């Protein structure tokens, strides 16, 4: 009987537990002292208290205590920490990830970039900057705009755009501050690509030299450099065979050159000017958006992550992997979209999740769930599959409209607007698309909410709230004469 410790919280614990159950494994979860109510601990057979989700010693101790054979780190927290992985491996506990050396090599943006250069994979013009002076000189060389990045941060932290020297000075300081949590901060400056698209390739590899890719995902819809809508395949590369095969070749080339030995993702930026992909960084862990790839390839990424973590050889060949249809994911966050995406706090008092055909919901939320803004406030990922992109987008739009999360502010209205927007439907977007359309979208949301407020204030509310069993009798209305739901429904047929 294999015992798995899932060293994380939130929806990823639920997701990983599903596969572990399928494998017939026993599951242990962890919780911080004041996070004991979180539903993630219930998916396991037993839960252990730790000092902190990021305390290596405490989590390692938990793994020892439950007799774990293997640890899955989820994403965030210790998932990209090679010291944590090494400590476990040294104790004879397997690690559901690549070996610590590969984590170090590819997890460091500067090292990974150098590796890509050696492997012949294009990267954007860049230079390391030990101080502000370096950074300014580098930016002059490369030409503004540039991005200042820390070599070792994740989740959209530690990177800021600068369009001139003044912005660069400030960006350098802030990035340096943000990067402290990840150890010694190494900073570099990279050319910023206008109208860029973010496309990434999912890689599966084992300890024995096998590497396959599961095709690409596009994650260009981001807010503050955090992805919120992702899709597989990429609308950009799906219609351009040569560009796609270039991208996939780069990914395999780099993985093989690096001797990569777990599951991971290689992220690329597409520059429409040069019509070229550039490697930007690697993620040596499971990604939030892995579900869209699972839906179009039918491959259980977590299963391969767990099994290769146990040093099993990869059981998939490249020729067996194909893409069918399209999958689009929307991340539902508890946050105040109209107030700079501040994390929202609160208790979910009403929940209605979409279900039925073509949908997948990976969620942590339930009625009574307390959203703790101390942690990432991702509540659920709603994924729709379609035989083509338009079908998937439409299904996701409807699923989002059906979803009700009451009692706490969420980004549901933003996602609904986004999915219905002309730009998204046409896949006419880039990494700053959301930031550029945010004012328009916010205004639209605000107007709709104003109308709804007015409608509700005019409806005889007390009666409605007490009407537990709506008595629906048609009063002679002929719908043809009205524009019933007209605003929402544009048929494709």
């Amino acid at each position: 009987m294999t015992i798995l410790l899932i060293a994380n919280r939130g929806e990823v614990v639920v997701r990983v537990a599903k596969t572990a159950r399928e494998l017939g494994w026993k599951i242990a979860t962890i919780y911080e002292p004041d996070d004991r109510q979180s539903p993630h601990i219930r998916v396991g057979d037993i839960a252990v208290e730790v000092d902190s989700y990021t305390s290596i010693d405490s989590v390692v101790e938990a793994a020892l205590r439950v007799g774990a054979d293997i640890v899955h780190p989820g994403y965030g927290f210790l998932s990209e920490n090679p010291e944590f992985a090494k400590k476990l491996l040294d104790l004879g506990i397997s690690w559901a990830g690549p070996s610590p050396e590969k984590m170090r090599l590819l997890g460091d943006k500067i090292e990974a970039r150098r590796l890509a250069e050696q492997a012949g994979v294009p990267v954007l013009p860049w230079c390391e900057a030990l101080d502000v002076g370096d950074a300014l000189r580098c930016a002059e060389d490369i030409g503004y705009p540039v991005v200042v990045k820390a070599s070792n941060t994740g989740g959209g932290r530690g990177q800021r755009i600068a369009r001139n020297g003044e912005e660069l000075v400030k960006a350098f300081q802030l990035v340096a501050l943000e990067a402290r949590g990840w150890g010694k901060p190494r900073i570099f400056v990279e050319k910023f690509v206008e109208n860029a698209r973010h496309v990434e390739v999912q890689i599966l590899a084992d300890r024995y030299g096998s590497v396959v890719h599961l095709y690409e995902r596009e994650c260009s819809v981001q807010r503050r450099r955090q992805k919120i809508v992702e899709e597989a395949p990429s609308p950009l590369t799906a219609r351009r065979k040569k560009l796609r095969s270039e991208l996939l070749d780069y990914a395999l080339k780099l993985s093989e050159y690096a001797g990569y030995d777990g599951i991971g993702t290689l992220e690329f930026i597409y520059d429409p000017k040069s019509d070229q992909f550039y490697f930007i960084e690697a993620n040596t862990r499971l990604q939030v958006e892995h579900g869209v790839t699972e839906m179009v390839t039918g491959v259980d990424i977590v299963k391969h992550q767990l099994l290769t973590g146990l040093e099993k050889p990869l059981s998939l060949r490249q020729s067996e992997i194909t893409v069918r249809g399209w999958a689009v994911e929307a991340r539902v966050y508890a946050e105040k979209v109209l107030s700079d995406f501040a994390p929202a706090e609160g208790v979910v008092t009403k929940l209605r999740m979409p279900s039925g055909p073509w949908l997948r919901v990976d969620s942590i939320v339930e009625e009574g769930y307390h959203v703790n803004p101390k942690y990432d406030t991702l509540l659920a990922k709603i994924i729709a599959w379609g035989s083509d992109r338009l079908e998937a987008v439409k299904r996701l739009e409807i699923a989002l409209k059906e979803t009700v999360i009451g009692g706490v502010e969420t980004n549901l209205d933003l996602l609904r607007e986004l999915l219905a927007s002309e730009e998204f439907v046409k896949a006419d977007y880039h990494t700053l698309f959301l930031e550029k359309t945010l004012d328009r979208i916010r205004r639209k949301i605000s107007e709709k909410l104003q109308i709804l407020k007015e409608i509700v204030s005019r409806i005889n509310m007390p009666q409605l709230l007490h009407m537990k069993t709506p008595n629906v009798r048609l009063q002679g209305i002929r719908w043809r004469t009205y524009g019933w739901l007209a605003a929402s429904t544009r048929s494709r047929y």
Partner: protein
Amino acid sequence: MGGSQRQRVLGIKRVSDNVYEVLLEDDSGKRYTVHVKVEGDILETPYGSYYLQDISRIETVGEARGGRSVLGVSWAIDFDSSSGIFKAKLSLKIIDVKVGRGSRVARDDTLLLFETMKMVGELKSPCEGIVEEVFVKPGEGVKSGSQLLKLKCK
């Protein structure tokens, strides 16, 4: 809902026991009808479904913007212009304090740097003024509701 045309509610008619027809008019005088349905405690609309109890609590852009334009960090820190007190709206970690008691500041000067789960932010002065009190130190973690600074605007 077309483009950026602002719409207003002209009238509401009950179609059946839980279905309402709403007549809307936009700025150009064009009229639309929209139907909404009440299912228990959920309001179903063409825009999406909502928990009825939430709708009256909704904060819209106009209202939210007020705060934002003053501080640019309204989601993390509150400023009470009458008392001059800045308060944390979330648990924050103070990274750096750029001013001390008695410091003279111009509008948009950085007062302090803080960190949340999401990123590092700057608290900028909403006005020209004098710092009357600093309640926090660099490296300190503060809880939601804690006082950070007191500023007297000119």
